[in-house]
């Protein structure tokens, strides 16, 4: 709650500085008519990764003195370099949000070096010391929200079998699968999560096939980590299974089947960035956080979520938001029986070991390769 007060104060400072800057014209880098460019890899109404960012952009559009320009379906090639430059040269953008992971290296780094006075904010948490100082990268520990989703899923599943439609066996995805499963096992220690990797970020046909095959195996609660969860959510709901969402709130797609979900909270973070810049503060080049920092959030519970599940999930959510709870706490055994985190070891949110995760925890049915 303390956090809320701080951010409100920052807000006041921020808007005051914004007004001052524009009055005196002193802060050329951040005048009243600042143009901000958003670049998406897919379509901005995908009920997923890109829509989450577009919601953040929409929050900026509501702030006065800002102009937001958006471009969607920009591939991770030199096309994105040209899109950034086009926004800079033709629209006068001074702050850019190239939101896809693959935009960073080499594309955004190249453009950021070419325009050292402009600010670039990339989603992915990839910034290192050797990268340009005007290039920032941020990301959220969304596994915290997945953990809470897992608790709800664990209570709701009647068969004790959960399903996970995943894109690629990379650390970020594995971390979500593991956190979801560990959460579910708090609710029901016998729960299993069957995972299917589709091989790519946006494969609607394979995602639908995976969803159907999981449900055919008796799985009754599903979640996913792909760019557009729409396919999984709609198909699962049609088949009578329950779902936990990802990226944004998908409850409009399946109001009855939607339990909860792990969401990005870009609509809170982006205005914060803009206010920091307007106040003359430097945004840290490497900016990460979880529930506590309000970078991720948990969707409101659906009607099918039991009282017991709500209580347990709320309890853990409050602990995570307070910052005193560790998800990856030893002993953790992987699904081949190997101890991956020994007893007594706590791997907190920011532990670099978690960034290299290459295992699936006990209870997950599936293989990383």
């Amino acid at each position, binding site marked *: 709650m303390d956090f809320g007060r701080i951010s409100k104060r920052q807000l006041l400072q921020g808007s005051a500085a914004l007004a001052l800057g524009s009055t005196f014209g002193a802060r050329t880098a951040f005048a009243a008519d600042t143009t901000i460019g958003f670049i998406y890899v897919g*379509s901005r109404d995908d009920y997923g990764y890109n829509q989450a960012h577009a919601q953040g952009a929409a929050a900026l559009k509501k702030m006065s003195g800002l102009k937001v*320009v*958006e*471009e*969607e*379906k*920009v*591939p*991770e*090639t*030199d*096309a994105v370099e*040209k*899109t950034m*430059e*086009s*926004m800079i*040269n*033709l*629209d006068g953008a001074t702050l850019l949000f190239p939101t896809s*992971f*693959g935009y960073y290296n*080499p594309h955004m780094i190249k453009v950021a070096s070419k325009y050292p006075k402009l600010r670039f904010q990339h989603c*992915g948490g990839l910034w290192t010391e050797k990268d340009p100082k005007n290039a920032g990268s941020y990301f959220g520990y969304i596994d915290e929200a997945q953990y809470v989703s897992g608790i709800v899923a664990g209570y709701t599943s009647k068969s004790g079998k959960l399903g996970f439609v995943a894109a*690629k066996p*990379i*650390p*970020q995805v594995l971390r979500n699968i593991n956190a979801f499963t560990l959460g579910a096992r708090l609710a029901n220690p016998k729960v299993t999560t069957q995972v299917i990797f589709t*091989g*790519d970020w946006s494969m609607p046909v394979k995602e639908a096939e995976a969803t159907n095959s999981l449900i055919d195996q008796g799985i009754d609660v599903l979640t996913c980590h792909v760019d557009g969860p729409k396919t999984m959510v709609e198909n699962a709901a049609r088949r009578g299974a329950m779902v936990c969402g990802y990226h944004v709130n998908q409850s409009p797609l399946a109001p009855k089947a939607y339990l909860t979900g792990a969401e990005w909270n870009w609509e809170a973070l982006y205005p914060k960035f803009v206010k920091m810049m307007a106040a003359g503060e430097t945004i840290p080049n490497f900016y990460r956080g979880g529930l506590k920092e309000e970078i991720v959030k948990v969707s409101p519970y659906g009607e099918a979520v039991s009282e017991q599940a709500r209580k347990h999930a709320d309890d853990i959510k409050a602990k995570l938001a307070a910052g005193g709870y560790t998800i990856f706490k030893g002993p953790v055994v992987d699904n081949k029986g190997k101890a991956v985190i020994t007893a007594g070891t706590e791997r907190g949110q920011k532990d670099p070991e978690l*960034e*290299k995760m290459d295992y699936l925890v006990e209870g997950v049915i599936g293989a990383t*390769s």
Partner: protein
Amino acid sequence: MTSEVADPADAISISPAADPGFLQRYGGTIEYILIPGAALVGALGVFGIFVALFGKNPLDLYFYMYQGAFGTWFSWQNTLTRAAPLILTALCTALPAQLGMVIIGGEGALLIGALASTSAALAMPSAPPLAVQLAMAAAGIIAGGLWIMLSGALRQYRGVNETISSLLLVYIALAILNHLVEGMMRDPTSLNKPSTREIGAANMLGSIPGTDVHWGLVFGILAAIASYILIYHTVFGFAARVAGGNIRAARIVGLGVGKLILTICFLAGASAGLAGMVEVAAVQGRTNANLAAGYGFTGILVAFLARQNPLAVIPVAILLGGIGASGGLLQRRLGLPDASVQVLQGIIFVFVLASDALYGRIGFLKGKS
């Protein structure tokens, strides 16, 4: 242009013997410029109506398209950068078309070429940059060439339809690329974006001096000119066109049709493979899934719009590069969705194909008949 054409046409109608040579000699060329030009104008007109239906001013549309594609020096560079890979991938369809073959697998040859050229660079870490670049080009050309030659061989020796086989080979190429990039060739530090190791900044192809357009444009133009000379000014090219016109007749006069098919397919694949090498050496610096950006598929469109003429591929690639470059501005200024650019491409495609029926039917261009 219209007036230039109209004058001699009028002259003919008055006195047919005035200058029949001019139109007999150049009538065909004028036709090749006039008909696609008119098709383009017609397509833009229809697209204008389409956009007007959504309440946008078509004149704004044309202005932004012009501004985004050709209006400034930056826009020109944007257009040319996007055109660069398309010239090479279009040749992958245009060359086999001389033999009457429809090859649509340029994307696969591009990916395999990229993979081979990256492997070549990584295999010689201490060689001087020029040697590395030459080895990369050779590897890309040979690997891409063999890839499409496979389709040619399947057609020649097994009677497999080359359109289907080349398309299916795209998915095989993509699977091989993903397999190697996520397995054997993976840079262990590329955690969440599986990629090969980088070829090194020193080995990168720079930009054409004075621009930020990479050398792929020059390679593409040279390859297109070389292809044109090969097809229209050599015995080999003549043989290919004879075989393309009537394969039985070609066999009867003793042309080695099998050899023609394999050679042309190799050259076609080689140009797409070179495009893959350029994408690695000038843009991405390594191989990963970003390379599957669809240049191979857009190349098919370019080849058909150019009516499979290797020389016409150059302006058509620039036109489509321009549409791509201005597409961003249409999204940003007019709020049109990304799909509107695809609608425009589709309309142009339909108009150009339909206008095929006009060749040889425009009376005043026939000269003395």
